[in-house]
């Protein structure tokens, strides 16, 4: 008997019991739908992070003090770590031809005051190229110049959140405000950047890095942010940076270079693991659906004992009966799988319609995997009932009431 014939026979008997078949499929439908949707949400989150971080500049390397265990984020042996200083940044920019800019970044928090209003905020000391590297636009006024940086001028560019909370709708350009103990003149306001990954990028005050050094009374840098000329030079740039700073740090590699791509990769990996765990849990519901199929198939085999006897009496081989029932359970689970795919797509569409900022990306491989898995579940849980049917003695089966 041909495969096509098994499918016809299977469909015949499923069609004879539509309600039961639909309920049986429901388990698989829900399982497949859950697997696909969870993967889609995980994948969507990954893409979302990728896009958000991409808006914060590309081809960026960040050197931080201390050797960080790769991907772990733990500082090891901090006692022997040398600080990164301003000269490190200057020399990197000068010595490596792959490094376009090296920005010494100083970060601290300070009390910002303007007449009655005040705010505790991040103060970030940077040099002028930082604006371009990080894609920070200027809304009103201007960014600070190289001369102002060299001269340690007390000027500042306000993030949108700080500007709004201190000045409201007023134009802040030219006014003096207090940053800690010092007075700073406002020369610009940053374009709105928004919240990225829960962090309000607009809640900052940018000042020349030289001024920040005085403000926080420190020589050590929070990090050195480097812009590499092109993506293909990233590895070369890293090698240069290691060589240069190592020489300055008595041959010790007591610093870490992170690239945005690496951070993305780490985050992507974490999300992947999380997604697979969730999808795995959802896959368990698919297994439960499979048990449902097995249950119904066992009932069906029992109910149709006589039919099995009749088929055997007119010439069906054991393998014919086995294939007929196996096909039936696979059809049940595969049709359920297709239903689950349809449902997941409908739900994904609905979710994006209602909550437009929940990122959902249905991937073809998750659809394929979920479908194949559902078919596999049909085979796996169909074998036992089908074997039971195939092994029935024809005489006993014919006498069954």
């Amino acid at each position: 008997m041909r495969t096509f014939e098994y499918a016809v026979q299977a469909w015949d008997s499923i069609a004879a019991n539509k309600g039961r078949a639909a309920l049986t499929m429901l388990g698989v439908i829900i399982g497949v739908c859950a697997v696909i949707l969870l993967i889609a949400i995980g994948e969507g989150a990954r893409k979302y992070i990728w896009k958000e971080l991409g808006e914060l500049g590309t081809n960026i390397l960040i050197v931080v003090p201390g050797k960080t265990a790769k991907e772990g984020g733990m500082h090891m042996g901090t006692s022997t770590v040398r600080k990164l200083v301003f000269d490190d940044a200057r020399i990197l920019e000068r010595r490596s031809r792959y490094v376009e800019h090296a920005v010494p970044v100083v970060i601290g928090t300070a009390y910002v005051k303007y007449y009655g209003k005040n705010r505790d905020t991040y103060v970030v000391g940077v040099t002028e190229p930082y604006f371009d590297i990080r894609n920070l636009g200027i809304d009103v006024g201007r960014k600070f110049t190289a001369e102002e940086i060299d001269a340690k001028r007390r000027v500042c560019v306000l993030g949108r959140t700080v500007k709004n909370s201190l000045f409201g709708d007023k134009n802040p350009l030219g006014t003096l405000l207090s940053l800690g103990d010092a007075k700073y003149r406002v020369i610009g306001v940053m374009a709105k950047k928004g919240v990225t990954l829960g962090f309000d990028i607009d809640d900052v005050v940018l000042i020349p890095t030289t001024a920040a050094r005085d403000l926080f009374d420190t020589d050590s840098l929070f990090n050195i942010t480097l812009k590499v000329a092109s993506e293909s030079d990233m590895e070369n740039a890293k090698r240069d940076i290691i060589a240069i700073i190592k020489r300055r740090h008595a041959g010790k590699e007591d610093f870490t270079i992170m690239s945005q791509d690496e951070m993305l990769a780490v985050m992507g990996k974490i999300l992947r693991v999380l997604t697979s765990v969730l999808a795995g849990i959802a896959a368990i519901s698919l297994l439960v659906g499979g048990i449902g199929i097995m249950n119904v198939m066992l009932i069906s085999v029992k109910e149709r004992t006589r039919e099995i006897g009749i088929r055997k009496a007119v010439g069906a081989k054991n393998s014919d009966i086995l294939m007929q029932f196996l096909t039936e359970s696979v059809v049940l689970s595969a049709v359920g799988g297709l239903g689950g795919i349809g449902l997941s797509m409908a739900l994904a569409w609905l979710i994006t319609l209602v909550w437009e900022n929940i990122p959902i990306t249905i991937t073809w491989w998750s659809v394929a995997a979920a479908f194949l898995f559902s078919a596999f579940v049909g085979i796996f849980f169909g074998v036992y009932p089908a074997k039971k049917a195939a092994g029935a003695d024809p005489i006993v089966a014919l006498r069954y009431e």
Partner: protein
Amino acid sequence: MVVLKGVKKSYGTGDGALEVLKGIDLDVKAGQYIAIMGPSGSGKSTLLHIIGCLDRPTSGTYHLGGLDVSQAAMDELAEIRNGKIGFVFQQFNLIARMPAWKNVELPLIYTAMPPPERKALATSMLRRVGLSHRYAHRPNELSGGEQQRVAIARALVNSPRLILADEPTGNLDSRSGADVISLFDELNAEGITIILITHDTGVAEKAHSIVTIRDGVFLRS
């Protein structure tokens, strides 16, 4: 055509074993029409199941058309049931959810015949038993006599040379029983060998010869 020698069949093993057939010798020539009679529980159905390759003897030999069936594998038995034997049961044994023509077609789906030919053949078999107008009816929409004729059409569809019938008229009134028996007469006239079990002497008298079984052995042959 059907040659049994010393066929025994027992159910169970050891002390609790029940010997139903206690040494059956039978030789049915091609084209013969045999009726088997005997009291209830004497082993008639058991014997017919063995002849029909639905069951195997515990001991003894059975040759069907020269082939030693007692040695055949399960799949070979299935092929013999499919192509060489047509079985008719007292309880009709039709599949309830299938229309008449699909029931008749059933043996053909286990052959290599393509679907259109199968359907044509099933249809012509239904015509042969006078039921072409009941083509799409399900078994529960047919009378007992009609159901048995569908079952006979199914038994004939693979053009077997041997028809086995276990009390084919047992569940029928005399009128539809007579229809069925005249159908067997026609088939036998065409050269098909028939072995039939019955409790009805009127039915048995249509056969060429009658054998009687009692407690697992033939009384006379």
